[in-house]
């Protein structure tokens, strides 16, 4: 885990990073997170990843996996209520 030379080249900023912590967005209401911020991003966000896919063709307990996982995605996105 050590790129000593790379690190040595960055001694001036060794303890620093260049990033931003995102505060809660003002966009669409999404479930509250553990730190009170609403998940979600700005701009053209896509829906659940599974929505990009069609049926899986994988049968589990007699049903297509995509169908079985639909409720899990509803739980994640808070759209199950």
């Amino acid at each position, binding site marked *: *885990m*050590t*790129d*000593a*030379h*790379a*690190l*040595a*080249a*960055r*001694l001036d*900023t*060794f*303890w*620093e*990073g*260049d*990033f*931003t*912590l*995102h*505060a809660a967005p003002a966009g669409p209401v*999404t*479930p509250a*997170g*553990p*730190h009170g*911020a609403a*998940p*979600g*991003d*700005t*701009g*053209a*966000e*896509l*829906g*659940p*990843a*599974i*929505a*990009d*896919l*069609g049926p*899986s*063709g*994988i*049968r*589990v*307990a007699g049903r297509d*996996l995509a169908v*079985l*996982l639909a*409720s*899990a*995605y509803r*739980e*994640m*996105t*808070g759209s199950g209520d």
Partner: protein
Amino acid sequence: MYALHALWQSDGRLALWAEDAQAYGAPREPVGRPAESGESGLPGGSIVGGGSGGSGGTGEPGVLATAGAPGALVRRARKDVRVAAHPYACPAGFLARLLAGIGPGLGWLAEQAPERWATLLLPGLGAAPTPSPQLPVGAVGRGILLSPWRVPVLVFGPVEAAQLLGELFDPHGSVATAELPGMGAVEVAYGASVRWLTAVHDLAWRLVGRGRVLPVLREEESGAAYARWQPAPDALARREAEALAAGCPPICLAEYRPGAPDRTGAELLAEVLDVLADRETRVALEGAPPPLRRAPAGTAEAWLAALCSHSTDGRFYDGRSADGGSAEGRSGGGRSGAVADLRERLAAWHAGAGAPGRLLRLCFRLSEPLGDDEPPGHDGDGGPAENPNDRAGDDDWRLDFLLQAVETPSLLVTADDLWSGGPAPAALARQVADPVETYTAELDRAVLRRPELRPALRASRPTGLTLDRAGALSFLREAAPALTEAGFGVLLPAWWQRRPRLGLALTAARTPVAGAIERTGQIDRDAVVDFRWAAALGELTLTEQELADLGAAQQGLVRLRGRWIEVDASQIAAALAFLSHRGGGSMSTTEVLRLALDPSAQVAGLPVTRVEATGPLGALLADASADPDATDGAPGAVDGPVRGGERTPPPALPQDFGATLRPYQERGLAWLHAMAQLGLGVVLADDMGLGKTVQTLALLAVEQGERAEREEQAERAGRPSGVPVPNLLVCPMSLVGNWQREAARFAPMLRVHVHHGADRAEGSVAQAVAAGADLVITTYGLVQRDAEELGRISWRRVIADEAQFIKNAATAQSRAVRALRAEHRIALTGTPVENRLAELHAVLDFANPGLFGSAESFKERYAIPVELNGNSAATGRLRRLAGPFMLRRSKSEPVIAAELPAKQEITVWCNLTPEQAGLYQAVVADLLQRLQGVRGVERQGAVLAAIGRLKQVCNHPSQLLHDRAELGDRSGKVARLEEILAEALAEGDRVLVFTQYAEFGRMLQPHLVERLGEEVLYLHGGVPKRRREEMVARFQSPDGPRIFLLSLKAGGTGLNLTNANHVIHLDRWWNPAVEDQATDRAFRIGQRRDVQVRRLVCVGTVEERIAELIESKRALAEAVVGEGEQWLTDLSAASLRELVSLSADAIGETETAVAVAGGGVAGEATGATTAGVTDR
């Protein structure tokens, strides 16, 4: 004040540690735990070993120094040096109290965390680490070194780490206050490492909240399998992740692990995001109803249950469980196979085929290592080979990523160019708004499909991967096809597409036999040749050393003589084993030919890649291998490519040969002649009407001329001229007359003996041969019946006409023909395959006995794959196998059609059956008797009536006798008609059949329907107009009947029947104009094909004599016969007798001697040698 720092360790756990600002003023004694650390407490490292380091060393004992960036040095602890503890780091226990002071949640988590040590590379000055900027200790001066320091840490597993980072997340501030018992409130500054990890966690958490995760199956090397949720960021999240990776604080990457591979911010981000997204998904699903409401059964259910479980790490298979009782365990592959299968199916599902209508796609380009292709001193031709594993640089394969326009695949931009911007990406920007975004999305999709691409994501701006040989081979074999299937572009080295397989090359040379005279230029299929096998890769013949070196190679990809090859250890072992035991010896020429001609031939499980030979055999093989690869055609299409013999100049025909060959016939003659000179049998399978007969006769004429020349030379040299060797032609009875007449017409120089007839004399064939006959014509029936006599003669050649007669190799007739001894064999057939490919084997096997293997093996290798499975590859193999020995041209081939006249007129010679001959003789005798003393009109009437009756006899006895009996096999002309029709139908053609006798037509129609199994239209004068139009329309329709029988009067004029490309005139009207008018029903405007016109003429009858008269004196004939047959009545008695009398060669049938009133014709039907027949 304290500074809190975090480290995501390489073991996948989170470590927290802290600095104490006050300690920088008064370094604390090292903390006592963990006890096993062996910690000395001396800043800068206590020295256990001795000696100074390498160049640039600091001079401090036990510490190595190397040059880093300008002005900076890196200290590295020697292996035998214990790293010192950080003097200003907080003890882990204190850290736990500090966290508890910030909040109860953190306190609870800290209680769960074990206390450990972590070693980090930290900046220092002199012999002490410098403080982080979060502490108000003061600025750091110059001369900073990076040194390893051990710090006490609290370690959190993924579950707790996710929770902890969520607790520590604070976008609004970086300092917390902790209430410590006995100390009051203290400030805790969150270092950049802590804040960065909380940012990554926040991203993971938000991804989960939007459902941007996908379920995957991960396997460890141990075989353990896990159900995991994997981040599936969209473009926005991907940009955020890229920014986080780029802004990763160096302290996050400071874990000290000497010798471990480098780690980048992108790699760390990917790893942390992966773990945290999985954890947060499980948190989100906690309490949700499980997808399965029963205990999981089978791999997929176990995986799904583990995926949705909150309390596990997702492992559902430990890699060792036999699970033999499950259905999967009992099936092939067992549980591990089911795991791999599920992983592949999930990957395929995730990767999909890309978004429909997408304009750009990711493309992979694999490049082999550049470098010295040839080892020094290697001559490239069997010289010493270097060890294929020893060449440096052969593991530097490069897999480049590119973005490719789907519609314009040549528009390719490398990822390097994409990231750097510039004109190339601008071209892609016209296709999509953000090519980089498309690229990263595609790369994510590819990684989902092929996890081995994941290492590319370690780079913040991935451009490709470096692969070793094993990785390259894996990509070539497995990843490339899968990526192609998933819709990605894949560019592979050209050699991979045509990489040679290891095979065996055979070299054969004629074995000299003491005392034996070798016939130069001729292949003796029964001769024995010496052979030697060698291993070969494509056209490269490998030396034994090279093969042994390849056998020693452990890598799948090896560079040999500058070319990359794929090594299959089992194949090399098989080659070594085979060559050591059976590398040389002797075998028959037939076996050599068989190996050379069979493209799927294998020896010891290895393909035979090449067969070379010396002498004429070598010439033939070179010719065959020079043939262009035939394209795979429809099953059953076995036409061969252009044969070498066709390209050689045709031999000169004797001057008195009676025909001028068309160009394609000259090519056929050249091929026949070349193959005959090689001693190899052939199948001439041209379409009907293309002149198989004239080509064969041309060959015989050429050989006769060559033989005569040799005899002359021998005579001049005073040497014996040798024993004449005749040709035997075997044909159906119905064709004897045709061959006889055509031989006389085209090859008058041939001395022809016809062996047939009931009174053929015992030994007549031997006598004819002894007398110098060049060609003996006989029938299939007689070959069987006179097998003993014919078998005593050594024939120069046996020609089997209508060779489909011997397609059933098991019949006595076929066996008798095959048993004849001959130097050379020719099979003539227009339909080499009538029903089954087994027939083709029978014909090929007649021409070259044994060369094509047994009928059983032929059936297994070709007939079944082609006929039952429609296997085009097998069809191609069969074509290449038979190609050199079979010449088949179709009249529809443009090059052939261009050489054919639009209207081809053919006289078809037919023999009478004994019954017909007897009747014919009776009519003649009756006529001649009637004419005695008769004059005038009465004489004319008698002559015309007799001519009419003779023509009826030539058609069929029933026509004369009106006996209402079945037509059966009583007419040679009808038999020949059936053969012609069958052949035309087999070629997909349509036929008009004209007769001037409506009564004969009525008899013929049901007979043809029965014999051919086809509908036969019949138009005569009694057909009403509406019905007549309907018949014409049906015949002209694409799916209509293919044979149209017409009476000359009813159908000879006015009809448009251009669907026909054959016209047959069954009987002669003696008036060319009448026949031409009938012919013009087909040969007229609207006809798009060449038309073949056949006139059936009975040999030795009035039909032949009048036909001769018409042909030889056409102008006169047109004048005198213009009014039909009236002119015949004015002939003198002598002329009339000559005209109508039956010649000896008229009869074809020999089975039954028919005694009829007026003449015992059977007695006249004896064999005859018709040497020097010239005036035909």
